């Protein structure tokens, strides 16, 4: 193992450029460790985001050697190429500065996909009894561990080609709610996710599923939404 890594880090806004650093190589070093070393020891003006450092919060996603990854759980060993790392801000999102992107559009699209739960029940009703092994619950469970890191959004070519496209995370969220029998906004949600900006824009490239650090499959969720929308249209519900 070499004593130092050659690291290129994006500096500035969209017209910025990569800046080179030499970072001491450590055992079990993560990409976030590398970025933190640069900020604490080499250049305190470097802007980047992180919070939990254990893969729960979804704050620290960046492009690492051209691939979107959660940096706190990405070991340098796994991604280093010829002792070099190139670290940039997430693709498909506006750059604020250095490694920090503006996530507003990403989360606004969750809202546009009607990503909030709205239940049937009131506080006077008993708890909903949902069988964990029922088919809808199993399908919803497969998608609910999303941490909102936007890795899938950065990996998606359709987002790059069609800026209005809601993207894999928002559609995955909508799918988990469509499959939640306690929710009462199913039809409104299907309306929100249908069309050229919604699930029908997906070409099933599977980049989102390939890159999701939580091993979810937004591709399957989007395919499910296409089926649900088709059935709702055929039944005259939409």
């Amino acid at each position, binding site marked *: 193992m070499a004593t130092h890594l050659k690291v290129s880090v994006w500096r500035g806004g969209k017209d910025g450029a990569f800046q080179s650093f030499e970072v001491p190589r450590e055992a079990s070093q993560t990409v976030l460790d590398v970025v933190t070393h640069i900020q604490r020891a080499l250049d305190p003006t470097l802007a980047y985001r992180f919070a939990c450092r254990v893969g729960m919060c979804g704050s620290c996603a960046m492009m690492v050697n051209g691939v979107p990854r959660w940096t706190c759980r990405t070991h340098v060993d796994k991604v280093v190429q010829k002792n070099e790392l190139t670290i940039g801000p997430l693709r498909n999102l506006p750059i604020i500065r250095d490694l920090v992107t503006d996530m507003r559009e990403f989360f606004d699209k969750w809202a546009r996909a009607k990503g909030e739960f709205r239940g049937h029940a009131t506080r006077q009703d008993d708890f909903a009894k949902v069988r964990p092994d029922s088919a809808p619950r199993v399908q919803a469970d497969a998608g609910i561990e999303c941490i909102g890191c936007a890795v899938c959004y950065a990996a998606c070519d*359709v987002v790059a*080609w*069609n800026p209005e496209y809601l993207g894999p995370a928002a559609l995955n969220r909508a799918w988990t709610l469509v499959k939640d029998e306690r929710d009462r906004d199913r039809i409104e949600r299907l*309306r929100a996710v*249908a*069309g*050229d900006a*919604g699930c*029908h*824009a997906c*070409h099933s490239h599977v980049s989102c599923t390939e890159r999701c650090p939580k091993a979810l499959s937004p591709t399957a969720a989007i395919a499910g939404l*296409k089926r649900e*929308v*088709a059935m*709702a*249209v*055929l039944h005259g519900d*939409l």
Partner: protein
Amino acid sequence: MTFRGEARLWIAQRASAALLALCVAVHLVTIVYAVRSGLTAAEILQRTRGSIAWFAFYSLFVLAVTVHAPIGLRSVLGEWLGWRGRSRDFALLLFAALLGWTGMRAVLGVFA
């Protein structure tokens, strides 16, 4: 276009894809079978002309292409050229008409 229209286009795209899978398979097998010992154009036309079943089959093939290709091209035009809106849909209607016209012209030439 409304979300309902987009959803209908998606259904049409999938249904025509299923038809095309069948039609292309039958078409290829027929070609290989028909020319396995060598046939002239005149001999082929002698066998195809007047066949109602083949006329119906290839008319269905043309219909599937006429539906499928413009919907696929619609996404390509939107994503690669940024061409969206009514002008795109109108242009694709013309393209569909061209496909249907040339396709049926060929079918009538071989089977009528």
